[in-house]
């Protein structure tokens, strides 16, 4: 672990904004992934100047710095693999400007997604990224992960909502990236480079985001299916029909059972359900989309289709999906839901095949997996359900995961749709992007020559994710 000059750091952030007690460091070593590692110190900066000063100090002393939002990341992105300074960004949580005329807002990175939307709602607009974790995820974390969510099928991922940002670089320089305009062709799109960079290239200290009007009408539909294949084929049929849903979510039987056990929501016990939504300013337009999607579901043997325009009812129906990931741990006694192999994207035409493959691979490797996700945007979620205290299960998981990614790559899919690479997905990512790794390393080297910003992640992460850090679970030897 790196030695840090506590007194000097106290001088920068103040006595109240620093923690270095062993218990506090233990807490900050963890996120929603399977990884854990101790930082050397935790700082809670409140100004851009403080962050610049911290970076200048860390850069001269070669101390790793890991920015951290809500630590809801699932691949160990915010886990300090080599120790160093954790920058807890949640204190910088002001909404700085809402500019209705020019259609953007400026926010500090620690603003929570739902909090931003609560405020935007009073202006009749919303920031549409909507990851399932929107109640906790910070804007900084979303940008660094290029998060997306249930409505990305219509409104895109974070990269489509970011107009610009202020970033503190490894040497402490402050850069203004992007613009306040809808389009920009002024050279390298460095703001885009920061999106998805997982804290390895710079610290996002302010973001300019665009927003869109809240549609007057939203209709949510639920269709049941007797086979996962039929549900998978329906997704592909909906998307290639030219329909414009604002959401298409899949839940397979493992997911349905888990949510019913954990939440007691009484979802139908079928092989799969599709949740679909259309939104718009005119009811007829929404009806048109919904009717089109409904017919496609029926054509693919979807049945028991229910539709709801009512906001409360929609929230109730959607709650199961929103709480799905953590609920998966309730599927089987003694099993826990681990954030592994969790968010690949595949072309629409390969959805059904991929969902089937996921279950085949799980069965073969003594783990349980679920196929669900924001399938309208091509994202297929899985989680590995296993007994995390058994060593053999980690070998099973390792094998299952490598088979899954082999399949994903064989159908031209990609390793991560939204949760990022961090540590646990790095091996598959390195295989997929083998021809661009050198370019990525060159960019990293140019912007962070001393390799202090969130080191050993993504292209630089260890080859075996299981041993990359201590696991957050205690495993019997």
């Amino acid at each position, binding site marked *: 672990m790196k030695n840090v000059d506590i007194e000097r750091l106290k001088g920068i952030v103040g006595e*109240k904004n620093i*923690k270095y*007690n*062993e*218990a*506090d460091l*233990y*807490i*900050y070593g*963890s*996120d*929603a992934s399977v990884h854990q590692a101790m930082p050397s110190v935790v700082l*809670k900066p409140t100004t851009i100047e403080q962050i610049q000063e911290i970076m200048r100090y860390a850069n001269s002393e070669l101390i790793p710095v890991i920015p951290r939002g*809500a*630590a*809801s990341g699932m691949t160990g992105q915010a886990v300090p693999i080599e120790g160093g300074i954790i920058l*807890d960004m*949640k*204190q910088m*949580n*002001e*909404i*700085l*400007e*809402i500019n209705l005329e020019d259609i953007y807002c400026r926010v500090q990175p620690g603003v*929570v997604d*739902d909090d931003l939307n609560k*405020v935007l709602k009073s202006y009749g607009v919303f920031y549409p990224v909507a990851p399932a*974790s929107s*109640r*906790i995820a910070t804007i900084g974390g979303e940008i660094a992960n290029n998060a997306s969510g249930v409505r990305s099928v219509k409104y895109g991922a974070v990269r489509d909502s970011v107009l610009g940002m202020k970033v503190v670089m490894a040497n402490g320089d402050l850069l203004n990236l992007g613009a306040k305009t809808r389009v920009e062709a002024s050279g390298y799109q460095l703001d885009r480079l920061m999106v998805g960079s997982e804290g390895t290239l710079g610290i996002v200290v302010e973001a300019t985001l665009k927003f869109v009007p809240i549609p007057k009408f939203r209709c949510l539909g639920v269709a049941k299916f007797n086979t996962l294949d039929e549900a998978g084929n329906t997704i592909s049929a909906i998307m290639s029909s030219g329909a414009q849903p604002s959401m298409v979510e899949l839940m397979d039987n493992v997911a349905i059972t888990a949510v019913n056990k*954990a*939440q007691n929501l009484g979802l139908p016990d079928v092989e799969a359900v599709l949740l679909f939504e259309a939104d718009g300013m005119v009811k007829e337009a929404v009806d048109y989309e919904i009717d089109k999607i409904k017919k496609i579901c029926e054509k693919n043997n979807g049945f028991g289709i229910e539709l709801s325009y009512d906001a409360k009812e929609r929230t109730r129906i959607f709650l199961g999906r929103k*709480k799905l*990931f*953590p*609920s998966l*741990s*309730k599927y089987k*006694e*003694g099993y*826990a*839901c*681990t*954030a592994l192999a969790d968010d690949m994207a595949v072309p629409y035409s390969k959805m059904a095949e991929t969902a089937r493959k996921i279950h085949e691979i799980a069965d073969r490797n003594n783990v349980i997996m679920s196929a669900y996700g924001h399938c309208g945007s091509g994202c297929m979620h899985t989680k590995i359900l296993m007994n*995390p*205290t058994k060593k053999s299960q980690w070998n099973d998981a390792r094998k299952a995961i490598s088979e899954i990614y082999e399949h994903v790559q064989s159908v031209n899919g990609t390793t991560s749709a939204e949760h990022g690479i961090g540590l646990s997905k790095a091996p598959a990512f390195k295989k997929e992007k083998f021809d661009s790794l050198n370019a990525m390393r060159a960019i990293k080297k140019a912007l962070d020559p001393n390799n202090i910003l969130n080191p050993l992640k993504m292209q630089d992460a260890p080859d075996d994710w299981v041993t990359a850090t201590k696991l*957050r*679970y*205690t495993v019997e030897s």
Partner: protein
Amino acid sequence: MKFKRLEKWRDDLNICIRCGYCYEQCHLYKVTSWETDTPRSKLILLYGMINGEIEPSEYIANKIFECFYCKRCDTNCSAGVSITEIFTDARADFIDAGFDVDGTTSKTNDDLCSRCGTCVYICKHEARSIDKENKKILIDKAKCQSCGCCEAACPSSAAYIVDGWEVSEDEMSEKVTKFLKGVVV
């Protein structure tokens, strides 16, 4: 330290996925704005303790005794972990191990207390009792849920909840004002 009661929560501590859904509504966290005061963090500490990765300490014990039992964390935890029940069992284990910390639990100012017993009858968590021999109010800190009923009911203003966990009232109001200013354009 023995984890007589905590031990039974081992599986639950495994299924907590550390998503953080529990903490955006935790008012203790909202005031201190340190992740270390969140329910998620407390579970992480307890997990580390029962697995021998971190030593139980007064610092950790105090954190576990800091909770107002509003139970929003329980409601928001979609893995269905009974977070506050785990805290109560952990507290009892800490007490057995000789840790004497207060956290946010209620106290009695013996000089002001008239031993009327109102607080004992009002406490729905059965955390208060009268020690007749020593003529004193006893508080079971494992059971106290810091609801404040004793403080509100005490005719002598003797029962009280410790205020200001490192944050003064002024600072608290400054934080709220700052946030509101940020959102009013």
